[in-house]
């Protein structure tokens, strides 16, 4: 147990340089963006003087190292700065939008797992069969389409033509009121408030974008499940279990699958962080008020603080995610920490 604890502490310590690296890179990257935010925000009819004023107000008249030092100082006080384009503190903005992205991403991943893991197991129990090939074809087809395209096609078919899906207007149709804010996850908040009508409304809005993202993530999860299950099923301990007369179910799930879970969890983590970045496109299509679309907008108008804040938030999320994965690992695998790298 102590091994695990230390191993996790070690991971947290390792995250420190990563976060710092992210801070530096995001700072440099934003300054390398071509637009001049002072000009941008001074407005259409600005005079050179007013542009200079804006520049001063934004602190952009200082040298880069100075700006960086100020930025670091602010960060140390938990101040991510103000988004110039929305004029609101980046932190507030992120706090409002992150749950939207997370809710979407998590729903998509759950959906994806529910489909992909059984598919992978099915394929692994019959390697080389037509079932295996079919699974491979299906999941690969899913990953071959650009998400924005899938999203638009889904909207076209299910909303425009068939009229089954609700209007793609973000997280909640305007006939509902937002559930009281607790976690920011509408499904959870609505459930907590016992407002099932809103819950259903939020769920309806979630389905299409989540399916769009899920289609994209089926392949890596199914592939990894299949490969890991094949390895596990071929392992000696499965043979031992069979020789001891354990039931097929116990062998498949109790022995093989639990071992296969390790690489699958790693893959899930990668897919999660990948999707969180990639759902920019889906958010755009479904007018989803997530963190991704926020970043795109900020990037386009060279809103330094917003971009930096976004990147930092994602990096922290990434670190947390890795910790969660490590925790999952340590729950699944008793060897974790004993042979920590």
């Amino acid at each position: 147990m102590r091994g695990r604890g230390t191993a996790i502490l070690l991971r947290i310590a390792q995250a420190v340089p990563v976060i710092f690296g992210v801070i530096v890179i995001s700072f440099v990257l934003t300054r390398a963006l071509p637009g001049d935010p002072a000009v941008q925000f001074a407005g259409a009819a600005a005079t050179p003087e007013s542009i200079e004023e804006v520049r001063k107000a934004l602190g952009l008249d200082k040298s880069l190292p100075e700006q960086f030092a100020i930025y670091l100082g602010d960060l140390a006080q938990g101040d991510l700065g103000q988004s110039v384009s929305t004029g609101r503190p980046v932190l507030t903005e992120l706090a409002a939008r992150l749950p939207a992205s997370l809710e979407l991403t998590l729903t998509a991943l759950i959906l994806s797992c529910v489909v992909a893991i059984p598919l992978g197991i099915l394929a692994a129990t019959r390697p080389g069969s037509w079932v295996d090939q079919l699974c491979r074809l299906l999941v690969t087809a899913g990953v071959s389409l650009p998400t924005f395209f899938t999203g638009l096609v889904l909207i076209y078919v299910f909303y425009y033509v068939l009229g089954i899906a609700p209007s793609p207007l973000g997280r909640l149709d305007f006939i509902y009121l937002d559930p009281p804010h607790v976690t920011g996850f509408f499904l959870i908040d609505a459930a907590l408030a016992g407002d099932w009508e809103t819950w259903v409304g939020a769920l309806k809005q979630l389905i299409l974008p989540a399916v769009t993202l899920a289609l994209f993530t089926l392949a890596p999860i199914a592939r990894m499940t299949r490969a890991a299950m094949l390895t596990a099923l071929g392992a000696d301990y499965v043979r031992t279990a069979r020789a001891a007369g354990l039931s097929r179910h116990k062998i498949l799930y109790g022995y093989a699958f639990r071992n296969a879970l390790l690489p699958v969890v790693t893959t899930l983590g990668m897919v999660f962080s990948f999707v969180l970045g990639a759902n920019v496109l889906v958010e755009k299509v479904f007018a989803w008020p997530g963190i991704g679309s926020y970043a795109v907008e900020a990037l386009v108008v060279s809103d330094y603080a917003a971009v930096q804040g976004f990147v930092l938030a994602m990096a922290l999320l990434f670190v947390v995610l890795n910790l969660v994965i490590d925790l999952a690992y340590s729950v699944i695998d008793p060897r974790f920490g004993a042979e920590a790298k």
Partner: protein
Amino acid sequence: MLSISNLCVSFKTRRGDVDAVKGVSFELANGERLGIVGESGSGKSVTSYALMRILDAGGRIKAGEAVYGGVDLRRASESAMKDIRGREISMIFQNPRAALNPIRKVGHQIEDVLRRHGQATASNAKEKAIEALEAVRINDAPARYEAYPFELSGGMCQRIVIAIALACNPRLLIADEPTTGLDITTQKTVMDLVDELVRARGMSSILITHDLGLASQYCDRIMVMKDGLIVEEGDPAELFANPQHPYTNRLVDATPRRGVSIRSLLPEDRRTPEPPREIRDEPLLEILNLRKTYMGKSGPVHAVKGVSFTIRQGESVGLVGESGCGKSTTSSMIVRLLDSSSGQILYKGEDLAALPAKDFARNPLRGKIQMVFQDATDSLNPRHTARQSIAEPLHRMTDLKGERLAARVLELAELTGLPAHLLDRFPHQLSGGQKARVGIARAIAPDPDLLILDEPTAALDVSIQALVLNLLADLRARLGMSYLFVSHDLNVVRLLCDKVVVMKGGAIVEAGPVEAVMDAPTNPYTSELLSAAPQAPSRRAA
């Protein structure tokens, strides 16, 4: 109790059906201990898997009958088989650590079986599991119940596997090479334990092994398998004394045992006289107080704690000891793959230890000290053909090119008895013995003075081991090399070496001429090692 007749098993593969077992028949009586020996791939394991109906996908019983206590094993329903497995017949496998679910507490793994077969309920499962652990004499069973396999040593893991196998009091235990991968001393304790338990419970057992010595020591009857067929069977002593089938003959011959010469391991028709050789007095290599300390996670690990010995020109020195005693570390330092922490390695008076290992590749002395690795498969680049592997050192360390290089490769192949048509094969297309030859050819390519052999035969069949040992003996005589022969098998060391050094825990406990040490060990540890090795009965004088 078990009766098998004409059992045939085949596998569906990419290149059509492969017949692994081609008609095996035998009977097993209550309480009988049967041994099955044979070379690798002869179908020993497949036969036992077929009995349990746990063949891999693609494998099926093509023909024959197998009846266990009145149940037709071939036709019984899958659920009936599940009740037989573990309850009536159970198995233990080689590589015990891999045979256990790495992420499940061993106690729970035992419980799984107990509960599957209705031997325990949720409430008393733990109690019963601990009983089962106690039965295999694991000390502090309640604590081990909570352990994961990675927290246990190989020997302990094998005890757990045995506990699982015996948990439901089966009437037949099949042990498929149960001690491969274990230390020689552990092997003995494990085998003794199995034997004792089997006898005490009046069970029958089938021991599958390629070690004739082991089989004869622990079995009442031995069957010899080759190419999916049983070629001979009989009482161990009888079989050894008077083998009938040529294959059995060869197997018996190849088994190293007390009081034979290296040549007599070979089949009779291949025994040429042992070439003469000369050991000169001047030391080739002097090891002086060599030490190696690794920086481990939990403090420094003293792998080698100051060893000193000398190898004279033309002399073979054996280095023996249990797993982890520092044999490989010592040889790595000598061959300059590893920097020593302190001490000297004097090669013809020059201190090699002073030369950093990472620059030694460019040193002209590089070719003078070469090594043959334990695992022939692992030591050959999977992407290089045999020819490329053998040519590699010539390329790097000589200026042979083109025709002359090719000729030299052919010469080396011939020297090591490797047929020329195999030179363009990749390692996975070669057999174990052939791979060993490629490894040896490569090692002798730059004309070394000293060859370090790190358990070169550990992964090989006895008959192939015999060939390789003789090849080494021939080469030594022809090329005048000195050997440092690392092994845990004293019987093998005795055959090839002039001198032996026994290590334990990183230090030398005994050293001296091979006969002296082995016949009259002064150190108790040496005696223990010697007695742990299974002794094959000697062959009746032919």
